Structure formats: structure tokens, C-alpha cells
């Protein structure tokens, strides 16, 4: 199986001098294409920093990070932004839907960013909303949707441009258990497939069972990688 994400000796610190705080202390990690990997661990262990590096949002201080064979260190500024737009899908903890846009328009944003004509983008967004079970709410604004529905819209947005890697930051922490479970079921059924890969940051133990592998982080390091929640 192809490697989607390859990290070798990745280090990242915040601040400078005596105020310097190491967030990642040398991460080695391979994420296989087509798998759902969960990054788990206590608050402040470096999970968010790690997915920020994987997503090309933060630059590592040391080490190597490549995504689908592309060395992230070789990309700069606008080049990196364009790469993110074509390769990555995001699901955020706070959904981050634009409140003044309808569900379909929100889902269409990644396509609009790639200069797809608006009509075509919204049409494709409606199809994607249909796939996540929100075909009847395409014209609703985020404020008219429940938390679970908003996260479904966010999932549709993360998938609409058919990215190869989807990074999710605490996708269920703002949802109740049942809604969280259904969101994860949806992600497994709709998002995974082919070589599309999911990296999910979470500390919600209730959804660990949806992972193919779980990487446990502690104090900026990966302490262990397991295949199921029972091995934790």
C-alpha cells in the first residue's frame, strides 16, 4: 500500500530563547493511503501542531514531511496554499461554515477556490450534500442547522473537490455521542475509499473504534501506534 504521509524526525517549537516551548520532539510516522488514522493524546501533547504540519499550515523546524511523495519543505507561500486547495480537505471542530452562505454555497467554497464556475460548483455541492444525507437542506444557512447537520455540511465541503487527504480536528467534540458516532460512520462510508486517507485528531474515546490505527501522542512524541482501541 502506498504511503500517504511520511514524517521523519519532525520537530517544531513555539517562541524563542528561554520562552521556547517544544511542541513536536521528533516525530516519525507513516500514514498509509486509504486508512483512517487517529491521533490521540492529552491536551497540549502536540496533536494539533502535528496535523498543521501534515496539512502544510505550519512549517516544521527540523525533519522531513512528505504527503503523497511531495516534500512539504519544497513548497512556499501561494504554492503551498494552492497545493492545500487541491490535495486536502478539512473538517474543523467548530465547523467553520460561513454564516451568510447556504449549505450548498458553503460546500462549493473549495471548488470556487479552484475557479470552478459558481453554477457548476453549487450543483456539485448539492450532489455532495445529497450523499451526506442533507439533500433537503441545501438552501439552509448554518444557523438553521443542528450541530450534527453542520458537521455533515463540513464533511461534504471537505469531500467536494475530491481531495486525497482529509484532516479532521476533533470532528465530534462539539457533538453528542449518537451524533458523533453517525458523523464518524458517515466519514468511514463516504470519505474513505481508494487511496483517500483520513487523519483524525481526537481525544473522544467513544470514536476510537472507527480508526484503522491509532497513534498515541504524549509530550510531543508518538508513544505508540495500535491497531484497535482495545490495545490502548
Amino acid at each position, binding site marked *: 500500500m502506498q504511503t500517504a504521509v511520511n514524517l521523519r524526525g519532525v520537530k517544531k517549537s513555539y517562541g524563542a530563547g528561554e520562552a521556547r516551548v517544544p511542541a513536536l520532539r521528533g516525530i516519525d510516522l507513516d500514514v498509509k493511503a486509504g486508512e483512517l488514522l487517529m491521533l490521540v493524546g492529552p491536551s497540549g501533547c502536540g496533536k*494539533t501542531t502535528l*496535523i*498543521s504540519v501534515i*496539512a502544510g*499550515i*505550519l512549517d516544521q523546524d527540523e525533519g522531513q514531511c512528505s504527503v503523497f511523495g511531495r516534500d512539504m519543505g519544497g513548497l512556499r*507561500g*501561494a504554492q503551498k*496554499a*494552492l*497545493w*492545500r*486547495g*487541491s490535495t*486536502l480537505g*478539512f473538517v*474543523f*471542530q*467548530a465547523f*467553520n461554515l*460561513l*454564516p*451568510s*452562505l447556504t449549505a450548498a*454555497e458553503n460546500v462549493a*467554497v*473549495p471548488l*470556487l*477556490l*479552484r475557479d470552478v464556475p*459558481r453554477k457548476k460548483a453549487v450543483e456539485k455541492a448539492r450532489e455532495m450534500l445529497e450523499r451526506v444525507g442533507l439533500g433537503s437542506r441545501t438552501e439552509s444557512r448554518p444557523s438553521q442547522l443542528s450541530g450534527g447537520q453542520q458537521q455533515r455540511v463540513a464533511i461534504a465541503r471537505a469531500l467536494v473537490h475530491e481531495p486525497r487527504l482529509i484532516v479532521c*480536528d*476533533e470532528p465530534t467534540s462539539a457533538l453528542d455521542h449518537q451524533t458523533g458516532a453517525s458523523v464518524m460512520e458517515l466519514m468511514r462510508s463516504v470519505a474513505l475509499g481508494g487511496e483517500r486517507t483520513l487523519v483524525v485528531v481526537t481525544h473522544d474515546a467513544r470514536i476510537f473504534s472507527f480508526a484503522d490505527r491509532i497513534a498515541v501522542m504524549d509530550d510531543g512524541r508518538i508513544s505508540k501506534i495500535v491497531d484497535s482501541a482495545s490495545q490502548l
Partner: protein
Amino acid sequence: MNFVALKMLIGDRAKYIGILIGITFASLLITQQSAIFTGIMSRTFATITDLPTPDVWVMDEKVQYIDDIKPLQDTELYRVRGVEGVEWATPLYKGLLKARLSNGNFQSCVVIGVDDATLIGAPIQMVDGRVEDLRQNDAVIVDERSAKGKLARVLPDGSRAPLRIGDSLEINDRRGVVVGICKVSRTFQSQPVVYTTFSRATSFAPRERKLLSFVLAKAKPGVDPLELCTRISAATGLRAHTREDFKWITMQYFLKYTGIPINFGMSVLLGFLVGTIIAGQTFFNFTLDNLKHFGALKAMGATNGRLVRMILLQALLVGALGWGMGVGGAATFGRLTSTTELAFRMPWQLLAISGGVVLIICSLSALICIWKVARLEPAIVFKG
């Protein structure tokens, strides 16, 4: 993404209206105050505006502006006529004389004496009567506004009636008979304007050795008026200006020696500052509120260039709308006050200037937001 930018802007109604109000207020204040200033300034050269026929005004070399009369000898007229390139030259008297009204009160009037033979310098727009009637005995033409106002007849019951053709008035103890009512631009001090012939005007005027205020000249076809001014000055030692130059010189005098520009400049500056602060702060708050969304867009692949274009579009839209509403408000104000003493003039140049100022306000506001968004770390989206 223009669509997304516009929906982001309009979607937050309260902020959108707040930004619009800020820019509208700034645009209104700047345009209205500037239009009043322009109106006042254009009154300073009203006499020149109302005399479109001559190309060149000839005067004593010490004259500083249109009301600064330094009379010339009558012979200067003939010297100007003798300059190469002059098609014709006519005398003009301009003076401030006292008119005695029917109720015994006195009123200062601008008396303009035009060439007896050609009547060049007479009013262009007649409301009643004919310019040719100035050739009748004691004939004068008065402006419509004064005929209804400052020069109006006082009836036995104390009420006032407009001055009409056939009515008479005393100018410096000499009888004047109204033969026409004309329309002229309002003067700087809003004094009545009385037209008569040059010879009659000089008989109205107090005895002086010299009574020729200006010589009005026309350039022959093909002769540049500016070049003619140079020739006249060289040949006569008098000062000669084209019509436009003389307007500008008159206005410059008022700009330099009165406090008008400072007072109006302060209002315009205040409008600019208040507008920039209100619009800038509201627009900045709008951006701050949307920072998380800009961060999400950045994470999803929006480049800084694209976000800058989105912000500029938002700023330009509110700028254009605010400018339009402000200018519309100022124009409405001008329309509503057109019959009052208030000076109000809104030429296209003024609209262009206020548009430019509004553009600067919006650009400054947008610049602060662009700076904030450009420095935004997209990792913000992962912070809950």
C-alpha cells in the same frame, strides 16, 4: 470567490449598514461642505461668469481681483483697440453705489455700466423686458432676485411687491427707470446688480477723474487670447487677463486673504477623519469577526492575493454605495436650498474629488484589514 466576498459582507447586516453609514456620512460631509465652498468661491467671480462675450479683461496693473477697482483713463480704451489682434474693445464701469428705496432706506448695489453703442456686457438672460431698452432715458435693468427682495417696493400697507418695469429708483440721487429684469449669478456679498449704459453709470457714480473700470476685448479669429493679453500688456502697460485667468486670480485673492478655505477645509478634514474612523473601525471589526472564516479559507487553499482581492472588493462595494448615497444626499440638500441665500455648486470635478477621498478612506480601512489577514496564521482554525 467574489460572490463569497459579497455574501460575507452583506450577510452581516448590522456591520454592513454601519460601514455604509460611516462612508455615507463622510461622503455627504465632504461633498456638501466642498459644494458650499465652491459655491461661495464661484460667487467671487460672478460678474466675470455673467460676461461670456469678451475673451480678455484689461485693467490697471495693481488690480488684485474683480472688486478691486482701480479706474483707468478713458484713453486707455483707444490704446487697447489699437493693439494688433483685437477684434473689438469696449468700456465697462463697475462700482458699488447706493440706491434709495421707496421707503427711504438705502441699499448698496453693484452698478455695471456697459458700452452705450454695442451694449456688450449687458445681461445675457432677460426675465422681462429687452436689453435694447437700456438706450431709453434713465434706463436700468435690475436682477430678478433683488427685484423681488432687497430692491422690492414697499407698499402703503407695509407689504413688499417686486420691482417691475416702469418702476423707478434713485441711484446716488439720480433717477433710474427699470426697463428690464434679468437673471444673474449671485454675487459674493449678495448685493443687487443694476445694469445701465457706461455713460449713465458714470453719471450715477461720484465725481472722479477716472471712471473706466475695465476694458473688455475680443481676440480676432485665430488669435490666442493668452497671446493677446501679452500683446496688450506690452503695448499699453496695463494688465490683461483671459476670462478664465481673471476668475482664477479673483478666487485666489479670496482664498489667500479670507479665512474661508481654512473654515471649510476644517469641515472637510473633519468629514474625512470621522468617515475614516467610523468606516475603518467598523470594517476592521467586520474583518476581525470574520478572521476565523478567513483563516478557514486560507487553510482550504485561498492565497493571500485572493483574500486581498476579496477584501478590496468588499471595501470598493461599500465605498461606491456610500459615496453614491453621500453625493445623493448632498445633491438633495443643494436642491432643497437652491432658492435660499446658501451658496451651493457641485461641478463634476467635485464629485471626482469626493469619490477619490472616499476611495482613500476605503483603501485605508481595507489596508488595515489586509494587513491583519495577510499575517493571519491559518492554524487559527484548529484552535477550537
